[in-house]
C-alpha cells in the first residue's frame, strides 16, 4: 500500500470543494491549486493550503501539467486529484506523475489513452462482446463520408475521435448537409483537440443515455454501483440525472450493468469510471457510447442511493487499498435526482451569465443535498464553465425525489446572475418527465415548442415561466 498524506487538488469549482471534503474525512491534507481568478474561491478558503498556479486563463493554469506537478512536489503532496474536465482524462499529467513518483488519483495513463480516443475505445469494447453504436472507423474524406452515410442511412452523427463528454459531435439530417458539416467538424476537431480524425455514428431519435458507475481496485475487483439515466440533455450536455434509470426492465438493467463490469474487467481498469451506453427505446437494445475515466459531475446520485462515498473510494484505490466491500454489499435504496444549476440565461439560448452573486441561499430539508462552491458575493468568472451548484434530492421512490426537487428548486435563492432554475422548475411540471417518458432529444424538442409558443425577446419576463 502507498501512503497518501497530502493531495494537490488540481481543479476548481464545486468538485475541488468535494475533493477537499473527502480528503479531510480521510485525514489527508489538501492543497488547493488555484488560478489567479480563484484566489477567493471556496476551495481556497477550506483547503489546508493554497497555491496560485497561474493566470485565470485555463491554458496558463489548470491545463499546465508541468506547473501542477511542480506545485505538488513543491508543497510536499504525494498525490494529485485531477477532478473532472481540464487534465482529468489527459494521459500527460498521469504520465508525468508516474515519472516523478506522485500518485495520480485516477486510472493508468494506458487506460486513459485506450478510452480517450473514441475510435480505439470502440475497438477495445467490441473485443469484450459488448454491442457498440453502429458506425464507421476513421473517415478519411467527405467522399468516404458520403459512401458510409449512404449505407448507414440518415440522420447520422459526425464525431471527433479525440472528443467525448458531448464535445465534438455534429448532427447531420441528410446528404445536403454532409459536406459542410463534415468540413467544419474536421476544422473544429483540429482546433479543439489537435486531432481532426472523424468517424460516423448512427443516430437514435428515441434513445436514453444510461451509464454504469464502476469502482475497480488494484486487486482486480470490479464492482458496479448501479446505473444512472442522463437523458435530459441539451446539445449533448447533461442537465438532469437520476438513479436508478426509470425506464429499464430488471433484465435490461442487469445486462447493462454487467456489460459495464465486463468492459472494466477486460481492460484491467483501476479507479472510478463510468461506462456510458445509448439505450434505443424502439428496439430495446443498448450500445456502448464511451467510457469516462474520471469522477463524474453526476456521481452524487449514485452516492445517494448506495451510501458509498465515491470520491473517498477513488482516493483509497489510488493508494492501492483494496475495496473493503464486494458487489453483494452494494445495496441500492430509493431514488435520487440531480439538477445542474448553471449561471446561464435560458431565454437567451442558455448563454453563460457570469457576474457577481448578490444573494445565495441554498435549500435545506430532508433528502436534499447541495454540492457547490458559491456563496453571496462570489464572482463567477467568465473564464470557466457556468456550473454553480448541483442540487441532489433523494426519496424512497422517484415521485418523492421529484417532490423534494420541486421544493428545493423553489427554495433556492440566487440573485445577481441568471440561472437555469426557472427552466428546471418548469421541467419538473412536465408530464413526460414525471412519467419518465423522455429521450436524449426531448429537452431540445421541448425548448423548440416553447420558442414556438412564446417568441424570445419578450419584455414581460422569462417566457419559460409563462407557459403551461
Amino acid at each position, binding site marked *: 500500500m502507498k501512503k497518501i498524506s497530502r493531495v494537490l487538488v488540481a481543479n476548481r469549482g464545486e468538485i475541488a470543494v468535494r475533493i477537499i471534503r473527502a480528503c479531510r474525512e480521510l485525514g489527508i491534507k489538501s492543497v488547493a491549486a488555484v488560478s*489567479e*481568478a480563484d*484566489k477567493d474561491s471556496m476551495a481556497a478558503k477550506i483547503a489546508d493550503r493554497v*497555491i*496560485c*498556479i*497561474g*493566470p*485565470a486563463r485555463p491554458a496558463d*493554469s489548470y491545463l499546465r501539467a*508541468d*506547473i501542477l*506537478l*511542480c*506545485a505538488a512536489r*513543491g*508543497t510536499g503532496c504525494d498525490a494529485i486529484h485531477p477532478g473532472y474536465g481540464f487534465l482529468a482524462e489527459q494521459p500527460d499529467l498521469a504520465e*508525468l506523475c508516474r515519472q516523478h513518483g506522485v500518485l495520480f488519483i485516477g486510472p493508468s495513463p494506458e487506460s486513459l489513452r485506450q478510452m480517450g480516443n473514441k475510435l480505439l475505445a470502440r475497438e477495445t469494447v467490441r473485443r469484450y462482446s459488448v454491442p457498440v453504436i453502429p458506425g464507421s472507423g476513421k473517415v478519411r474524406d467527405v467522399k468516404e463520408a458520403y459512401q458510409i452515410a449512404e449505407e448507414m442511412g440518415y440522420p447520422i452523427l459526425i464525431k471527433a475521435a479525440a472528443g467525448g463528454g458531448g464535445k465534438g459531435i455534429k448532427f447531420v439530417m441528410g446528404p445536403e448537409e454532409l459536406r459542410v458539416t463534415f468540413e467544419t467538424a474536421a476544422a473544429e476537431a483540429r482546433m479543439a483537440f489537435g486531432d481532426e480524425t472523424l468517424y460516423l455514428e448512427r443516430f437514435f431519435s428515441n434513445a436514453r443515455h444510461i451509464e454504469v458507475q464502476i469502482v475497480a481496485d488494484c486487486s482486480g475487483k470490479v464492482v458496479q454501483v448501479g446505473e444512472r439515466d442522463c437523458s435530459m440533455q441539451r446539445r449533448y450536455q447533461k442537465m438532469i440525472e437520476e438513479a436508478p434509470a426509470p425506464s429499464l426492465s430488471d433484465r435490461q438493467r442487469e445486462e447493462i450493468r454487467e456489460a459495464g463490469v465486463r468492459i472494466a474487467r477486460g481492460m484491467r481498469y483501476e479507479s472510478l469510471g463510468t461506462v456510458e451506453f445509448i439505450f434505443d427505446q424502439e428496439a430495446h437494445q443498448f450500445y456502448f457510447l464511451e467510457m469516462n475515466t474520471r469522477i463524474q459531475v453526476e456521481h452524487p446520485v449514485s452516492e445517494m442511493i448506495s451510501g458509498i462515498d465515491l470520491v473517498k473510494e477513488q482516493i483509497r484505490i489510488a493508494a492501492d487499498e483494496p475495496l473493503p466491500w464486494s458487489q453483494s454489499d452494494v445495496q441500492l435504496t430509493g431514488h435520487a435526482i440531480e439538477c445542474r444549476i448553471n449561471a446561464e440565461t435560458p431565454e*437567451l*439560448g442558455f*448563454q*453563460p*451569465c*457570469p*457576474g*457577481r452573486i448578490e444573494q445565495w441561499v441554498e435549500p435545506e430539508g430532508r433528502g436534499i443535498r447541495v454540492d457547490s462552491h458559491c456563496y453571496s458575493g462570489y*464572482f463567477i*468568472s*467568465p*473564464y470557466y464553465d457556468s456550473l454553480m451548484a448541483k442540487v441532489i434530492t433523494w426519496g424512497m421512490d422517484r415521485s418523492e425525489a421529484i417532490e423534494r426537487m420541486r421544493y428545493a428548486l423553489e427554495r433556492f435563492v440566487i440573485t445577481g446572475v441568471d440561472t437555469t432554475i426557472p427552466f428546471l422548475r418548469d421541467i419538473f411540471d412536465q408530464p413526460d418527465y414525471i412519467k419518465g417518458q423522455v429521450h436524449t432529444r426531448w429537452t431540445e424538442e421541448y425548448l423548440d415548442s416553447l420558442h414556438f409558443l412564446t417568441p*424570445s*425577446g419578450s*419584455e414581460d419576463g422569462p417566457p419559460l415561466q409563462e407557459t403551461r
Partner: protein
Amino acid sequence: MSLTEDEVTQILKWIEDSNFDELNLVMGEMKLVVKKRRDGRLVAEEAAAQRSTQTVVPEKGAMEVEKGKPFCATYEIQDRTGAIPEEGLSAIRSPMLGTFYRCPAPGAPPYVEVGSFVEEGDTVCLIEVMKVFNAVKAGVRGCIAKIFPETGQLVEYGQTLFFVSPDDRIHKKGEA
C-alpha cells in the same frame, strides 16, 4: 460593450509593464483611463457615458459580465503574500509558479544582491518548472531594495520576489 474584471486587470498589467504613463481607451460608450502614479502604482477608472437602456441580445459567445452596470474599479497593486511595497518601492513578481534560483549556476554569483542596479531588461533570477529554466526580467529600472525568496524555494504565480527602489541616484553617482 463593457470590460470584464480580468480584461481590465490584463490592460493594467500591460501598462504596468510598458513605458507609458497614461492610457485613454474609448470603446463605443465605454471609456477607460489608466494613469501611473509617481510611485509606480496604477489607478484605473472606467466611466460609462450615456448607456442605452434597450436590451440587446448579445451575439452567441459574447459575454458581458456586469449587465447594465458600468464596471468601476480602483485597482491598486497589493501583494498577495502580504508584502506591500513601501512608498516609492515597486515589486518584481513571479511570472509563474516554480522553483526560485538567484544564481545562473551552482556556485556562480547571484544575478542581483541588495543594492544592485538593474535596467528593465536585466535578468534578476531564474524560475524552474520541470527542468525548464525561465529568466525573470526586472521590468523596472532601479536598485534592488529587498530579496524575498531563497534559492530552491517554491514561488507562486504573482508572488513578490524583489522590491526595487526606482531611484537611480546610485547609478548616476557611479557614472560621475
